[in-house]
């Protein structure tokens, strides 16, 4: 079994992350309910003939994917694996509204074609003329993690020497308001709904300062009582006692299910730094891909952004990190990184 390293990490988010690392020196304030990503100039990355049909998510994915490959000096990956919770909701809304408005008449195919969940993976393959393995996961808050596991499997068993893995979701224009409408106003999510794309290149050969993706585990359902035993088992499987974990990256979104993070944090000593990030980038099904972006950047730069840390931040080298996410008490994921 081969080890799996992360060669590059790129993120488009509600902050200036695309151009400048964590981009949190001058944080952008978020609107309360929903927030668009801080978009790069897509014209610089995508030819006009392709760009003219692309909705926000496709633009974000293709651009973040392109930059991740460039940063890793890879022209053609051996696999492209994408995770997206809501898929291409913008074009889905466009086509569905056209059906309703025109009562099934005068419909054109572009929005339908682009609404297919695998559009981003397909457009990246088309742009690169990449005939390799191509897959798309669409499982709510585990969409990105499923894609990451697929990539890890392929590097480990040597069926791919490099894999482009990405997680992305676009906000859309209509459906998000319905989701916001039914969110519990007292106990529900308090950070804004948002969008973003975080892309990574995985590979088997150790490069200088490369962060290793050691393990990933997901659970469809997990009771609060079982969080501790699941964490302990995960640490044991990977031969990392709690005190070896330098940073714990948590997906707090302000809802009553944040208790899960409190429980998880209680598994670790005070010397483990805790970080949360959704107050800066908002919540969406693949927000945890930003969590991984944060983890990788943290280990690479050895820099703790004070906006994200909670409690004491002891000064010490950051070598091992765990990223834990869940959504409304379901779809739990644990990712282990080491330097």
């Amino acid at each position, binding site marked *: 079994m081969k080890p799996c390293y992360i060669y590059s990490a790129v993120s488009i988010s509600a902050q200036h992350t695309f151009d400048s690392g964590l981009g949190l020196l001058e944080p952008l304030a978020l609107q309360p309910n929903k927030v668009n990503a801080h978009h790069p100039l897509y014209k610089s990355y995508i030819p006009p003939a392709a760009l003219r049909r692309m909705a926000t998510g496709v633009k974000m994915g293709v651009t973040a994917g392109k930059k991740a490959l460039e940063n890793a000096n890879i022209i053609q990956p051996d696999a492209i694996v994408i995770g997206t*919770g*809501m*898929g291409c909701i913008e074009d*889905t809304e466009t*086509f*569905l*509204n056209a*059906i*309703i408005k025109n009562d*099934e*008449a005068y*419909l*054109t*195919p572009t929005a*339908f*074609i*682009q*609404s*297919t*969940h*695998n*559009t981003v*993976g*397909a*457009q990246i*393959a*088309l742009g690169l*003329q*990449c*005939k*390799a*393995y*191509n*897959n*798309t*996961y*669409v*499982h*709510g808050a*585990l*969409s990105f993690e*499923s894609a990451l596991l*697929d990539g890890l*499997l392929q590097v*480990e*068993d040597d069926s791919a020497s490099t894999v482009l893995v990405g997680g992305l979701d676009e906000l859309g224009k*209509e*459906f998000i*308001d*319905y*989701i916001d*409408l*039914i969110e519990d106003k007292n106990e529900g999510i308090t950070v804004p709904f948002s969008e973003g794309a975080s892309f990574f290149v995985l590979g088997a050969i150790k490069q200088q300062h490369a962060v290793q993706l050691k393990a990933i585990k*997901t*659970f*469809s359902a*997990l009771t609060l009582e079982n969080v501790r035993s699941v964490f302990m088992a995960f640490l044991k499987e990977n031969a990392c006692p709690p005190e070896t974990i330098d940073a714990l990256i948590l997906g707090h979104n302000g809802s009553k299910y944040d208790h899960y993070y409190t429980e998880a944090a209680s598994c670790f000593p005070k010397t483990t730094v805790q970080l949360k990030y959704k107050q800066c980038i908002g919540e969406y*099904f693949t927000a945890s891909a930003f969590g991984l972006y944060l983890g990788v950047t943290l280990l690479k730069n050895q820099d703790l952004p004070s906006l994200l840390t909670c409690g004491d931040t002891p000064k010490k080298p950051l070598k091992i990190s765990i990223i834990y996410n869940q959504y409304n008490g*379901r*779809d739990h994921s644990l990712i282990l990184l080491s330097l």
Partner: protein
Amino acid sequence: MGIVSAIGHSVSENLDALLNSKPGITSISSVKTHHANTIKVGEVKRSNADLIKALQLPEHTNYTRTALLGCYAAKQAIQNANITAINSYRTGFISSTSVGGMDKTEIHLKDFATNKAVQKYIKSHHAGDSTQKIADTLGIDGFVTTISTACSSAANAIMLGAKLIKSGRLDRVIVGGVDPLSKFTINGFKTLMILSESDCRPFDADRSGLNLGEAAAYLVLESQAIVEKENKKVLAYISGYANANDAFHQTASSETGEGAYLAMTQALKTAQLNPSQIDYINAHGTATANNDLSESVAIKRVFGETIPDFSSTKAFTGHTLAAAGAIEAVYSVLALQNQVVFPNLNFKTTIPETGLQPVTTIKRKPIKHVLSNSFGFGGNCSTLIFSKL
């Protein structure tokens, strides 16, 4: 294995229809559409209310038709595999869908803001919802995910399942896919002008497009260790799999069938088989002008002058989109179990460019290896190979 399709609500009903050349293509009744008179579909003749009753769910659930069909087929698969304690082994669940909760969203979208009674379907819209409901019904808490690569989705779900067992991460995994008919997909395919007004004719020179279908199918994959420990009867082995991309066009397949060619050759390589060892190809064969020509070219490139017996079963079921790979995996296993090639219905004339002749009547013969193709939008091409020991 468990299956519900236009030709039957169980594995044995499906087999019976296949053996007796009884297709399930009819006019549409489950979805209200202005196109009802100009399309034909492969519809599961059980209403949502029937399915809710059969699954013993509360009357006012927020189960979409996707979740209902999926639960129905997945429960069968568990029974069929004689599984009583699902969590006695590390068990995962991988589903696939392209419609997701759209069957309800397309009805209620404009009521979501104001009608409290239908707001329950807001949460069931995303594609992972039906998977989660099926996993919960089966009692699977661990690894659960959903794949959506258009019409090759379920083949990729089966492939991932096989890889997770091979890597030792899981001992058992239930894999497959589900898609109901929906107004959204009917109109989408209509805009592409690839829906046939009559019964579809895969691989025929005069084919005029596809019939959409709805279905769900799941297969239980288990590690060799479980098989030995429990002395279980094995229906078939997954011996080869591959996923490649045509990288040609967002919806159309290339003239050379490059993606399909790569998927088939790589699957043969993982199975360590020569093309001549394939006894039957269950083709993707949607009956669109583009797919059948491109697939035929790819088959010729892989198999040369000696083309194995092949057929598309889509004239029985319609094209069941994300479920198709799972439906046809079940049929591939049935072909191995019963040593029979299922017929390609409605075929008359060979495609002039390729001259390939599918099997058109039931053909009994020794079958050891079956190759099954599933291709989708976005250039996604996947091939699975099922073998008998």
